[in-house]
């Protein structure tokens, strides 16, 4: 229709100016009349029975409106297993679990009221690791597990603390090991991390007078929340309004309900006043975390590096409530043998309850954990066989037409392209091991390589509408949330492209379930692919309607009508008209046009519960390969990363700048996981470093130059060929760092993060 002019351009983000000037309005900035402030009393114990709760002193404090405990609100929630109470019901299962909630006229009063609540606990011995949880003598943290409502994904095992057991059975691994020249088995560990959104969690709930529950929250999936709250509070969906103001980061930590139910419950009792909860940074660390994972991986290879068989057993510490843990375990499970052609694969992944804070989605959905295991492991195998890490990958990587480990026939596979392009950028020649530079005084410099793949989720629906207002300005409505990844810019660009108007004429609305149509979730790097398709289809639908009106005015066929720079061109005369001129001429009194678009694909399949086989479990795949150039100081254990080369297959870059920024962000997050980030716990299950003083994210002084390489292997179903991107760059960083450390100093690390202290210990053990 129009020329491909805007697709691929590195246009400035549509929300850049409002963000850098501080004009952007976040949930915590909203100024609602009469708002009450909430605070939660949380459990100091990881596992305890609640003997009694006395709220009388809190209630008598001036300014306190409501104090609630588990006695006041029943019902369970949870996206995979409905196992979680709004407020603790007789038992607390993690330190930090909400026990009581207060609404008061000020935050200060709410905090004082919380201090006046008297809870008597009977402490129980907490289960803090997956090993403890799987011991035959471990208490069952959820005795009602079998009776809970649950999704089909949650393959729970009766009489255990396992809330999902995911399996792949493909070929015969024992036969594969027997046919191998070399078999290696190792165990890798990833500790719990935190998402570290710039904005701490904030939610406001109000029961409006017409019976609507209105929630303003920094959640990344409004429709998930709408349905969960409607179910919990027994309301029709169309009476639950979720409004998402500007979001200050998500990274998976905001897909499912967390503190919202308790605030809604307070709002039910506040006499139509809005109730707000804004968490402190310290509280935010307890709200939700990433999974810890232990992966035992065994691989058999031929001398030439051909992978014959691979087996993984992974244990995921999901904490006190399942949240989306079972799905994380499944979706990372079916990719966890890595992006390689392997005939014989056996995967057992276990999602395990413990008495630790709840773990949820985290940028990559478990893929960074399994990538750490399978990439470090492959680098070790390459080393043992005397092969170059690049060479062994090029030999085994999955390519177009190959079958995945679930039996999917793969298309548009950019894995090899990513490896080749990143190697070229870093000047790493296949078949040559990276050189080690001795910098003196115990410092060595070298390169390291790793790659990764990631599926998205199933073909879930996303809808969009594009409204062309008569004078030619355009509104895009989509509920996929721009949490900083830049989806609004992508949607504006696509709508402008399809309608032949400048991007500046497009406004992308904030998600609001009363206005913007259904979207499954903002997760799984699906915003550009599914949201992009929906917006593209909606804009095309809108354009077709505009073209019909224009054809009426021009007396031509609608297909012959075109628009450029916001003007509609008469195919016969070449004269240009404003949208308003045409729409007004076509319909007396004028008209707006509403285009509708969906992204929904047929043919999605599940995965067989016993074999993990399924031909179409994911709408698309993402691929990433990275090379890290670093220096390691064997006298102090410190690392200095000089540069990271990061290639990602984006299918087609809709916005080049955005893609580069997504890679920068993902690599930075991956570098934190690699080097410095770890939630540490005491022996009572309490987080020791729930602040930025002690939880070490990478600062701008630590992050090296990152060379982003956009590989474009177009996807047949993606908008303009685009795939997703956001999550894939996180995973390869840590194993590439470990490979560089191994190449530079000859030590093999199996547990993250690679802190100076841990590296120094490894050097010592190695006799360096």
């Amino acid at each position: 229709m129009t020329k491909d002019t805007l697709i691929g351009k590195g246009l400035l983000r549509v929300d850049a100016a409002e963000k850098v000037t501080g004009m952007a309005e976040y949930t915590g900035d909203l100024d609602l009349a009469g708002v009450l402030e909430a605070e939660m009393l949380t459990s100091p114990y990881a596992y305890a029975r609640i003997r009694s709760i006395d709220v009388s002193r809190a209630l008598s404090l001036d300014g306190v409106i409501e104090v609630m405990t588990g006695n006041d609100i029943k019902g369970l929630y949870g996206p995979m297993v409905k196992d979680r109470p709004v407020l603790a019901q007789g038992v607390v299962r993690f330190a930090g679990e909400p026990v009581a909630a207060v609404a008061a006229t000020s935050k200060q009063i709410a905090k004082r009221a919380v201090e006046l609540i008297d809870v008597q606990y009977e402490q129980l011995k907490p289960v803090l690791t997956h090993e403890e949880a799987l011991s035959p003598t471990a208490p069952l943290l959820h005795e009602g597990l079998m009776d809970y409502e649950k999704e089909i994904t949650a393959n729970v095992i009766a009489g255990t603390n396992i809330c999902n057991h995911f399996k792949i059975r493909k070929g015969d691994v024992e036969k594969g090991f027997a046919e191998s020249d070399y078999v290696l088995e190792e165990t890798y560990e990833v500790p719990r991390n935190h998402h570290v959104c710039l904005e701490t969690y904030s939610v406001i709930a109000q029961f409006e007078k017409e019976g609507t529950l209105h929630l303003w929250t920094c959640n990344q999936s409004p429709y998930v929340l709408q349905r969960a709250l409607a179910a919990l509070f027994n309301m029709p969906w169309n009476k639950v309004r979720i409004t998402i103001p500007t979001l200050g980061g998500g990274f998976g930590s905001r897909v499912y309900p967390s503190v919202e139910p308790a605030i809604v419950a307070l709002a039910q009792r506040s006499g139509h006043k809005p109730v707000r909860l804004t968490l402190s940074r310290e509280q935010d660390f307890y709200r939700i975390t990433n999974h810890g994972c232990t992966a035992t991986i065994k691989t058999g290879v031929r001398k030439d590096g051909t992978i014959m068989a691979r087996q993984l057993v992974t244990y995921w510490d999901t904490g006190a409530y399942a949240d989306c843990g079972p799905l994380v375990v499944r979706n990372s499970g079916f990719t966890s043998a890595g992006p390689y052609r392997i005939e014989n694969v056996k995967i057992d992944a276990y999602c395990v309850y413990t008495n630790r804070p709840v773990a949820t989605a985290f940028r990559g959905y478990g893929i960074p954990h399994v990538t750490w295991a399978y990439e470090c492991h492959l680098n070790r195998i390459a080393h043992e066989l005397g092969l170059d890490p690049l060479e062994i990958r090029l030999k085994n990587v999955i390519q177009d037409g190959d079958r995945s480990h679930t039996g999917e026939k793969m298309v548009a596979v950019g894995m090899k392209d990513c490896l080749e392009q990143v190697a070229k950028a870093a000047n790493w020649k296949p078949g040559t091991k990276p050189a080690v530079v001795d910098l003196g005084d115990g410092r060595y410099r070298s390169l390291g390589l790793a790659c990764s793949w990631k599926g998205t989720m199933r073909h879930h629906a996303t809808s969009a509408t594009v409204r062309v207002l008569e004078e030619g300005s355009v509104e895009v409505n989509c509920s996929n949330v721009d949490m900083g990844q830049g989806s609004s810019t992508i949607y504006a660009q696509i709508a402008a492209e399809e309608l032949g108007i400048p991007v500046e004429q497009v406004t992308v609305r904030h998600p609001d379930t009363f206005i913007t149509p259904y979207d499954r979730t903002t997760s799984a790097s699906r915003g550009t692919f599914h949201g992009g398709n929906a917006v593209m289809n909606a804009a095309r639908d809108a354009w077709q309607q505009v073209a019909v009106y224009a054809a009426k005015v021009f007396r031509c066929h609608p297909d012959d009508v075109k628009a450029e720079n916001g003007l509609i061109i008469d195919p016969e005369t070449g004269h240009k008209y404003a949208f308003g001129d045409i729409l007004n001429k076509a319909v007396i009194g004028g008209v707006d046009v509403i285009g509708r678009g969906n992204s929904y694909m047929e043919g999605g399949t599940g995965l067989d519960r016993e074999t993990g086989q399924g031909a179409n479990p994911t709408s698309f795949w993402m691929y990433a390969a990275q090379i890290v150039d670093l220096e390691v100081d064997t006298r102090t254990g410190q690392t200095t990363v000089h540069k990271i080369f990061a290639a990602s297959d984006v299918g087609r870059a809709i916005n080049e700048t955005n893609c580069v920024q997504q890679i920068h962000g993902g690599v930075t997050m991956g570098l934190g996981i690699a080097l410095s980030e770890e939630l540490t716990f005491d022996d009572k299950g309490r987080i020791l470093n729930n602040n930025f003083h002690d939880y070490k994210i990478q600062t701008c002084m630590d992050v090296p130059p990152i060379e982003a390489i956009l590989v474009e292997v177009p996807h047949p179903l993606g908008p303009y060929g685009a795939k997703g991107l956001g999550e894939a760059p996180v995973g390869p960083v840590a194993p590439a760092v470990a490979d560089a450390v191994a190449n530079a100093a000859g030590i093999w690390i199996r547990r993250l993060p690679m802190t100076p202290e841990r590296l120094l210990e490894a050097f010592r053990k190695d006799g360096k």
Partner: protein
Amino acid sequence: MVNKMPALKPFLYERPSSLEQLTALLADHAGMVPGYLSGGTDLLVAMRTGKDSPELVVDLKGLPNLRGINRCEDGKLWIGALATIHSLEVNKTIRSQITLLFEAAQSLGSWQVRNRGTIGGNLANGAPTANTAAPLLALDAEILTWSPVGKRRIPVASFWLGARKTALHTGEIITGVEIPLKQGSSSAYTKLGPRKAMDIAIASAAVVLSLDRGIIQEVRIAMGGAGPTPLRARSAEAYLTGRPALAENLIQAGKLAASESNPRTSTRATREYRLSVIPVLVERSIRSALKRQEGLVEENGGEDR
């Protein structure tokens, strides 16, 4: 409670504009332990988390004569207690003649913290890993104080009494720091932390030395994070004095410094790790300071530029 911010306790806030007013204020609130506020980068954090809850907060920023960095007539450098950390890193005298203090200032926190935080606050807070502490110890500086009962000059070596304990009496404030400037000496500060910014040192080493024809003449070595207070590595100093600046001597000095340390295990690092890196930091600081001796010849007599 594990994840709860306690309600901020009520407190009085006063901002005296003279020492006379401060005297009167302290007399009026006798019995209260004032929390002194300058940059606020330590006090406000402690009040927010409930680690400190002073009933009386006295803002020192209204007091006169506590700002600036000046050369004294006796050749010393005076730094006002309210001088910000950033003002240290841009000061020409400090940059050219007190390199270790420049390095310590430059590697403290972030721009925001350096713009707020003051040298007086950094010292009074009493942390053994404070960036300015080990350098001032190696420089043999003096801390100048005031209290209603009079002024004191406290040699830095006797300023730190224990973990977070200083020689300051209740109500006493730091007014400034005096640093002797010596021709021919060079210095270096090495800090080790898991990050390159926004980090407190796991351990640090500060060295001031002078050299004559390859022989170390005078050397002072101070360590942060090596014990409950900043520590001098006196046996390492004694060992190096009069010895040639050779690699083996530097290594030996590092070992001696570690043997004088008594670090603790904290959430940031274990005692063992600190003991492993202290000799490396000491050795590397000495080496950097020695390297700067080569530059001194050309810069000899170089005044504020």
